Structure formats: structure tokens, C-alpha cells
């Protein structure tokens, strides 16, 4: 349900800030895996690369076309996972996923999700959950691909 109040819950300042000034945007070398994900409903797209080294997420670089929610979420993803051990990053991913799928009932843990807690309002808009998850799904896909790549 979309009213003026929860419009503000959706478009929190933090989200709009990330949207205007996305962190980590652009495609960079080196990378072990690159994926391209699409939201078939609206056409939003992300191309995303990961660079892992010694079990740590060294870099996540991306080029994204999409709405404020999907752009801001890629920026927050970058902040949250770069520099973290892969295991820890995957745990953050789980936490973010749970928040998004909680229909707005979830209690986000600010220590884990930092700016990501601003997305709590998005969970109340089923049509927008996919926007918030686009880059996160791409990141997980790329991470699994590159972990597989490195273990062979």
C-alpha cells in the first residue's frame, strides 16, 4: 500500500543519497567472474564483477541501469561486502534477503546491515523487492561462479 507516509518510508534519505552518489560504480579489473542480470518485468539490468583473493571480497564493480531502489541497493552492497571475508559477506547477503522477504515485518540488525536498514521500507512494496535484490542476486551468482572457478 502506497500512501504519502510510506512513500517516505520507501524513499529514505539514505536511499536517495546512494542513488545520487553511488559508491563503487563502474566496471574494474581484475575480476574472476562477471554476470549480467535482468529484471524481466521492468527491464532493469546490472552487469557485475567480483574480485576475490584469499577468501576475501577484494572488489565488487558494476554498471547498472535502473530505478533509485536498484541503484542505491548496488551502492549499499558495495559498502557492505567489499573487504569482508566471503563467508561473512554471504551471511550479510542472507540477512539482507531475509529483510527484503519479510514483508516489512523484519527487524533489521543495524550492526550487520548499516545503511542497508534503510531498505526495510521497500519490503512493504512487493513490486519493488525485486529492484532491491537485483544487484544482490547478481553478486551472489558471480561470487559462487568465481569461488567455483578458483577451487578448480
Amino acid at each position, binding site marked *: *500500500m*502506497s*500512501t*504519502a*507516509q*510510506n*512513500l517516505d518510508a*520507501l*524513499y529514505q534519505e539514505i536511499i*536517495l543519497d546512494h542513488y545520487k552518489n553511488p559508491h563503487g560504480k563502474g566496471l574494474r579489473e581484475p575480476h574472476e567472474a562477471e554476470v549480467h542480470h535482468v529484471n524481466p*518485468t*521492468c*527491464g*532493469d*539490468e546490472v552487469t557485475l564483477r567480483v574480485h576475490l583473493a584469499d577468501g576475501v571480497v577484494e572488489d565488487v564493480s558494476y554498471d547498472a*541501469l*535502473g*530505478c*533509485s*531502489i536498484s541503484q542505491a541497493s548496488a551502492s549499499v552492497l558495495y559498502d557492505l561486502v567489499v573487504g569482508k571475508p566471503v563467508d561473512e559477506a554471504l551471511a550479510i547477503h542472507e540477512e539482507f534477503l531475509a529483510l527484503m522477504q519479510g514483508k516489512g515485518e523484519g527487524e533489521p540488525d543495524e550492526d550487520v546491515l548499516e545503511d542497508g536498514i534503510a531498505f526495510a521500507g521497500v519490503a512493504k*512494496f512487493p513490486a*519493488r523487492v525485486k*529492484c532491491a535484490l537485483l544487484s544482490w542476486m547478481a553478486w551472489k551468482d558471480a561470487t559462487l561462479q568465481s569461488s567455483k572457478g578458483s577451487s578448480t
Partner: protein
Amino acid sequence: MTSPELPGLLPELEVVRKDFPILERVLAGGVPLVYLDSANTSQKPQVVIDAMVDHLERHNANIARAMHQLGAESTVAFEAARDKVAAFIGAPERDEVIFTKNASEALNLAANTLAWAGDRQVGPGDEVVITEMEHHSNIVPWQLLTQRSGATLRWFGITDDGHLDLSTIDDLITERTKVVAVTWVSNMLGTINPIAEIARRAHQVGALVVVDASQAAPQLPIDLAAMPEDERPDLMAFTGHKVVGPTGIGVLWGRRAVLDQLPPFLGGGEMIETVRMDGSTYAPIPHKFEAGTPPIVEAIGLGAAVEYLGHLGMDAVHAHEQAITAYALDGLATVPGLTILGPTDAALRGGAIAFEIDGVHPHDIAQVLDSRGVAVRAGHHCAKPAHARFGVQSSTRMSSYLYTTPAEIDALVDGLEYTRSYFKLA
């Protein structure tokens, strides 16, 4: 809502609006519904809903096969719906009207049967011509056909102002062309295409002309029988839910001679003449293409829908659409940073208007509008290639219909101003 006096509006528009129960709907936050997504699906008048309810509560039975009283009533109602649809499009023969589940199935029926042995079979060396402004439902079936048959797919491009680029017509439509499939009215750009001219050229080379009338049937008066034969489509598709009818029903109209040439599409039910384990023969049209229990209550709903449109008069509906579209084009032009994709002359276009606003993504526009009760569509509207042609991935689309008021357009324009300020655009 009080409406400015615009010439061309449907007489007694407020009374007409009362026919549509959903228009009374109040949304979250107590805001009234402003439904501007009719190119996506139209709303239903009470008379359509009542026709369906009456059927389900009093006459429901399977058709054709049932000889009892309910069966006879149901069959008469279903076939009367075919008569009404035939009258709506001026079909030369009522048996040329095939009921499908939607426009997509109708177009796939055409493309799929052309893959199989028959007088019209498409094969290697043959060409199928479509356009860049088609809905996915008039692209993918032809991609599947050409991929599977070894034929070649070619297409018309789009000019900068949103028209078909017909300068390549003689290069595109040649003696290799077996099918030309084109939309009458674009669901994204709003463009009305010159289907008569394209049909004439296609018929000169013996190609089959398939017209997607999904956006035309709701808005334009159609009289197939009155068209000169060389300008008349051979096959034409439209969908029930966009002409104030229910979902689950679409129409393929086809010239009898062509439908007779096509092999069966789906098998089973009443599409047969006789069935033996080692082979079957098929019923004549329309039943040949109506396998299984058809969408009976949906056809009855569609019959009531086109009858309703007939009572309003399609000329009047078209005039209303043009008046509203012109008013909307004017209103949208006042919004800073707004660009319209497609023709900007209301007389040359249908009622779907796709646009962009610099600095705000279509999703975000639609979201803010929704918080004010204004329902528009954001995305690629199942027309990715047309978006790609204009270098965009998605757009916002408003689309009006016979129940749309100028005040609703005002609400949209106000909402767009608010969106700009919400996202702090200068």
C-alpha cells in the same frame, strides 16, 4: 470530478463512468483511483460482469455437445457472442471469428500453424517481415517460427518521430516474403500504422498479412467487410480484456480461404470431424481452431463488452480517445524535462503515451503517482526492441480509455510535478 468542456468527449461521461464499478474504488490513504493503465487492461462495465454472473448462476453448461436445455442455452449464448464479435469488426463471415484465450494465442496460432505442412508452410529461403515496434507477442512467435522452419526474420525500423520507416518497404517485402505481421496501433509509441498501404504491398507479392489489432480494436471503428480486399488483413488478432471484456478470451479473425489452408493448431474436443486411433479428420472453421472446452463464460462476457462499445458507438469512443489524448499531450508538454516517445499529434496516434522525465526512473515516477492514486505503467511494456530503438530501457506510460476524464489527466500532470519536486529536480 468536474471535467473541463472538451469537444469530442463522450456525451454524459459521468453517467458512463457509473457503468464501471471499479472507478468508485478508494485506494490506500483514502485517495480515489485515477486509472490510466487501460492499454494494459481495460476496466469492465457492470453489464459485462452481470452477463457472466447470469450465465454462471443460471445457464452454465458445456456447449455444442450438450443437448439438454442448459446446454442449448449455453450454446446459443456462446454462438451469439461470436455474432456480436463478428459485427464489432465487420467480419465478412461470422464463422471466420475464432475464439482464443488472448491476442497472444491468436498470433501464435498463426505462426505455429505456418510451421507445419500445408499450402502456406514457411520454410528455408522464405522471409517473414515484422516491425521494431511490435509487442513481444507479435515478435517472439515469428522468431520461433523462423528459427524452427529455417526461414529468415526481417523487420521495419522506426523513424525518430516514432513512425514506421517505410522507405525500405520495397527492399523488405519481396517475392521471398511469406508473411508480413504488423501492429495496427503501437502499445508503446501510440503510432497508428498505415496497414492498408502495407497490406497492398504485401498482397502484391502474395504474402499473408497478419495484423495485431490489440490496441486498435479498443479505439478505432473496424469494418473489415468494408475494406478493399487488397488492403484487408488476412488474419487479425485482438484481446478481450482490452475492449472492456474479461481476461481469458481473445479473437483471431481470418479470411475463410486462409483459415481453411492452415493445418490444425491444438487438437482435441470439438475440433474434430471424426477420430480413429490411426488418424482423424477435422471440423470446419471456426471449430477446427477451438480445441477443448472454449472460454464459454468469457466469450459471453466479451459479447456483452463489444455490444456495450457498439451502443456507445466506436466513432464516439475514438473521438473521446482523441480528445483526451490531445489534452494529455498538452498537459504533459508543461512538465519540465519530460520527453514523449512517439508521435505528438493526437490525430495520428492511439491513447497510449509513453514518456521519460530527465533524472527520474520510470519506476520511481510510477511509485510516486501511485501514492496519489494515479495508476500508470512503468517498464518496457512488452516492447523492448522499441525501447532499445530510442536508447531507453523503460518508460512511463499513461493510457486513457472511454471512461477517462480531463480531470484525471490533470491529476496525472499534478502528480508528475509533485514527482519532480519529490526527487528534488530543479
